[in-house]
Structure formats: structure tokens, C-alpha cells
């Protein structure tokens, strides 16, 4: 028999979380319904934004005359869209693969072995990770220019592959593993690589996976780097596809937004369990 306080707490927290849920998800709903609205309806609602006139913005959750024309126009008559979509896939895929190859061994070394300057190195890694893009953009521009990588996808892939952020995330997964396991493996005659690959990596796989999910979300939405380093617009990723909003392209922008949303949501829903377990494992192991 629940006490009156427990009942109140139950309803209050339910109300709170329901409204929080609505607050967090309403942009998705708005974009979805906007992508199905006819241009006339969109213009009617958003005229003041588009034409910069006086007035108010309005919107409705359900389109009056739903239409799929924006999707048709986008998917059937706009080849540039496929190019940008493919660019995003290529960039994100290459970066994540590279990070897997580079950051995981790096995190392993930092957490498992004791070597001189280890702590200082880690501090440096964390500092580098925190520097916002604007601080390093000049230096990156110079290096990429010198290496002749400007205006190619490598200009985005290489710096991201060597980012220290995944090292930080994955470090905590390795750090919490019991050292006795590794000793046991070594005593059994395993070489260091085997210890890493067959013992360490499987145990920390949740943390590694969650770092990959976070990485996907990060690089799928990359905006500053391509804007600065890619002059050639055919190399641009999906995140830069959205042109200035005008009355004739609002609908397609909405539709493109929905499509941009799908891979991250997909990855995220698939990886959510791993994300939570990985976060838990890496957050609490000290």
C-alpha cells in the first residue's frame, strides 16, 4: 500500500518526465511534419522567417494537405543530395575506422603500462581534446596546406583519426579492468599483443563501442572543419548541404533534415544499450 507521498512523487515525476520527453523530441516531430507539408502551407506558416517580414510564425503538428513532393524532389531529382550523403558516410566511416586503429591501442598503452611521463602525456592528451576548433584551426590550416591536403577529404579524416578524445573515453574502460587477468594471460605465455587483442579488447568492448557511437554522432554533424578546409563543394558532407532558406526550398530543406536525422538516430538506437553500458563502465571504474 503506497503512502500518499509515494503516490504524489510518482505522479509528479511521471508528469515531469513526460514533459521532458516532449521538450526533447518536439524538434523531430516538427521537422517531420514540415517535410510533409505543401510549399503553400509552409509559406503560410513560415512567411515571416523566409521573407523577413513582420508577422508571426505558426506551425501545425499535422499538415493540412500532406504531400510527399519534397521527398520525391530530393531523392529523385537532386543528384547532389546523394553526393553529399555519400560524402558524409565516407568521412564518418573512414574516421571511425582510423580511430579504432589508432586510439584503442593508445588508450591501452596509457592505462595498462607504467612508463615514464605517462601522467604528463595523459594530461596533454586531455588538454588537446578540450581545445575548441577555432583555437587549432589556424595551425591545422597551415599543416594541411604544407602537406598538400587542402581541399581533399584527407584534410578532415587525418586530424580526426588522431584526435585524443576517443583515447580519453576508451582509457577509462581499460583502466577498470583487473590486472590479474592480464598477468594470468602472460603467465600462460601470451605475448603483449595477444593480451591486448584477446583479453583486453573484448572486455572493454562496450566502452569502445560507445566511443564509436559518440564519434559517429560527432562526425556526422561536422560543420566547421568542412566549411574551412573544403573549398570544393562537391566534397561537402550532408551537414553543409542546407542552403539559405528561401520560399522555394523550405520543403526540401525539411525533407533533407529528416533524412540527415535517420542515420544518427539509427546508430544511436542500435547502439543505445552499448552506449549506456559503456558509459556506465567507463564512468564508474576508478
Amino acid at each position, binding site marked *: 500500500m503506497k503512502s500518499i507521498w509515494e503516490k504524489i*512523487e*510518482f505522479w509528479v*515525476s511521471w508528469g515531469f518526465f513526460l514533459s*521532458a*520527453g516532449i521538450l*526533447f*523530441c518536439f524538434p*523531430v516531430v516538427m*521537422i517531420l511534419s514540415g517535410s510533409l507539408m505543401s510549399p503553400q502551407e509552409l509559406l503560410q506558416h513560415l512567411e515571416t*522567417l523566409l521573407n523577413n517580414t*513582420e508577422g*508571426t*510564425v505558426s506551425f501545425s503538428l499535422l499538415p493540412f494537405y500532406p504531400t510527399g513532393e519534397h521527398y520525391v524532389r530530393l531523392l529523385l531529382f537532386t543528384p547532389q543530395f546523394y553526393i553529399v550523403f555519400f560524402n558524409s558516410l565516407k568521412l564518418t566511416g573512414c574516421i571511425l575506422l582510423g580511430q579504432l*586503429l*589508432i586510439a584503442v*591501442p*593508445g588508450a591501452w*598503452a*596509457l592505462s595498462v*603500462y607504467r*612508463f615514464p611521463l605517462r*601522467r604528463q602525456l595523459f594530461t596533454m592528451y*586531455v*588538454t*588537446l*581534446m*578540450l*581545445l*575548441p576548433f*577555432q*583555437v*587549432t584551426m*589556424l*595551425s591545422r590550416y*597551415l*599543416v594541411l596546406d604544407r602537406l598538400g591536403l587542402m581541399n581533399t577529404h584527407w584534410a578532415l579524416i*587525418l*586530424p580526426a*583519426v588522431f584526435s*585524443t578524445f576517443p583515447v*580519453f573515453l576508451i582509457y577509462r574502460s581499460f583502466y577498470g579492468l583487473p590486472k590479474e587477468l592480464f598477468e594470468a594471460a*602472460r*603467465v600462460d605465455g601470451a605475448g603483449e599483443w595477444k593480451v591486448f587483442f584477446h583479453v583486453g579488447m573484448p572486455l572493454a568492448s562496450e566502452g569502445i563501442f560507445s566511443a564509436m557511437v559518440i564519434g559517429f*554522432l560527432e562526425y*556526422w*554533424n561536422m560543420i566547421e572543419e568542412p566549411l574551412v578546409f573544403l573549398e570544393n563543394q562537391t566534397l561537402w558532407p550532408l*551537414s553543409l548541404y542546407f542552403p539559405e*532558406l528561401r520560399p522555394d526550398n523550405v520543403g526540401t530543406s525539411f525533407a533533407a533534415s529528416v533524412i*540527415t*536525422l535517420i542515420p*544518427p538516430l539509427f*546508430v*544511436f538506437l542500435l547502439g*543505445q544499450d552499448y552506449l*549506456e553500458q559503456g558509459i*556506465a563502465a*567507463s*564512468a*564508474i571504474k*576508478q
Partner: protein
Amino acid sequence: MRKQCRKSSGKRRSTWRSSLTPIAFMAPGLLGTVIFVLLPFADVIRRSFYASVVGTWRGFENYRVVFENSAFRKALQNTLRFELCCLPLLVILGFLAAYLLTRGRHPEPVKTLFLVPMAIPAVVVALVWKMVFGHGGFLGQLLNKPEGFMENPGAFGVLVFSYLWKNLGYTIVLWIAGIAALPSGMFEAARVDGAGETAILRKILLPNLKGVLYTITVLSFLNSFKVFREAYLVAGAYPQEDIYLLQHLFNNWFVRLEMDKLAAAAVCLGIVLFAVILLFRHFWDREEEL
């Protein structure tokens, strides 16, 4: 006898190994980091002492110019104000929500909902924010302010809201994970001993969550710089003065090719961040053997 011999030779082997193997694991990553991050930053440090186009030695002149630059001062002030507002707000609100969630029984989908904002691309968010906070937007209609909030000091509030909206869910999940990992035996024992909920909160829960707090703080700090993206997409390169952040300033200097000022300011920011990290480490060093 034989067992002892094996043990001692094993130790010697692993000491020799342990100085070589980490190098093998770290070398590629370190090399890349040096090439793409450290060396360039060293070059930026060098550049901060020279004039940008002409290349003449300027000494600390660039630094002096930067500190006297009113845009820099304003941006610095805004960025500091934003950090001091948002970080505690995010961490504390996240904790409160997580605490509430763990006390009741709530279905899994709630957590999914919380993580959705992280997955929404910045362009989409910017579009919606324009509709809600812009000129003639929804919030303006609700509060009877037709000019919206992006062109007056309310823009700061919009920025804070955007940051909290995007990161609160993630923070809550982190806190929940931290709380859930604590052995429940501790709490049971305390309750049996007659401790009230507040006492449990203060004396048992909080002290054990220091590690989580560290991770959450670092990640929230990192994400606070990303708020520039939405701000830029909604308000452009020269937004209302209260949300003109350091990133806006750096971006504009870059576009105008004022590299000497950019270099000097970048070095300053790097030093400040480094100091902040050292401060963090000092607080958490006693807990962790980093």
C-alpha cells in the same frame, strides 16, 4: 626451486618488455598527434610573435593588442559567463533528475527520449530554434515579444537553453549509470541503521560519486564549446553582443586573415585550458591514480 626461478625470470622479462611495448602501442597515435596537433600549435606560438602578413618580429605586441581589443574582452566575458552559468546548472540539474529517476521505477524508453537531442544534427536544431526564438517565433508569441529573443540580451538565455537541451539527457544517463553502479547493500545498511534520506544522500551517495562527477564535468566542459555551432547557424557570424563568444571572434579573425591576433589569443586560451585541467587533476588526483 624451479618455480621461484621461473617467477624471477618472468619479472625481468616483463620489465624489459614493459618499456618497449607501450611505445609500440602508442607510436602511431602519438606520431599523428604530434604532426597534426602539437607541431602546428608550436607554429602558432611562433606566429603569435610576428606580424601576420609582413612577417616582422613583434615580440609581445600582438598579445598587448589582443588584450586591449574590446571585441576580445567582450567575447572573453561572454564565454566565461556562459561557462560559469551552464556547467553547474547542467551537472546539478542532471544529478537531481537522475536521483529522482533512480528512486522510482521508470520504463526504459524514458532514457532513450533523453538521449535523442544528442542525435539531432545542428542544422535541424538551428532551424527549429529560429522558429521558436526568432523574430516572430513561438516563444515570442507566447510572451508577447514579437521581435523574438535573438536580437536582445535574451539571446544569452537561448544559448543556455540550447546547451542544456542538448546535453541534459546525456548527463542524466551518466549520473544514473554512476548511481546504479553503487552497491545497494550500503544503502540498505544505512536505512536499517535509521538514516533518513537526506543523510543517505549527503553522506553516502555523494562522496561515492566523485569519479562520475569528474567524467561528467570534463565532458560537459568539452561540449560547452560546441554550442558555437548552433549559435552560428541561428545568428550568423556577428550575433547579438551578449552571445558573441571567443569562437565567433576567432572565426572572424580567421576570415579576415588577422592571423597574428588569432595566434596570440589562441596561445592564451591554450594556457588557460591547460591550467583548468591541472586544477581538475589536483582535485581528483587523490582519488585516482591517473
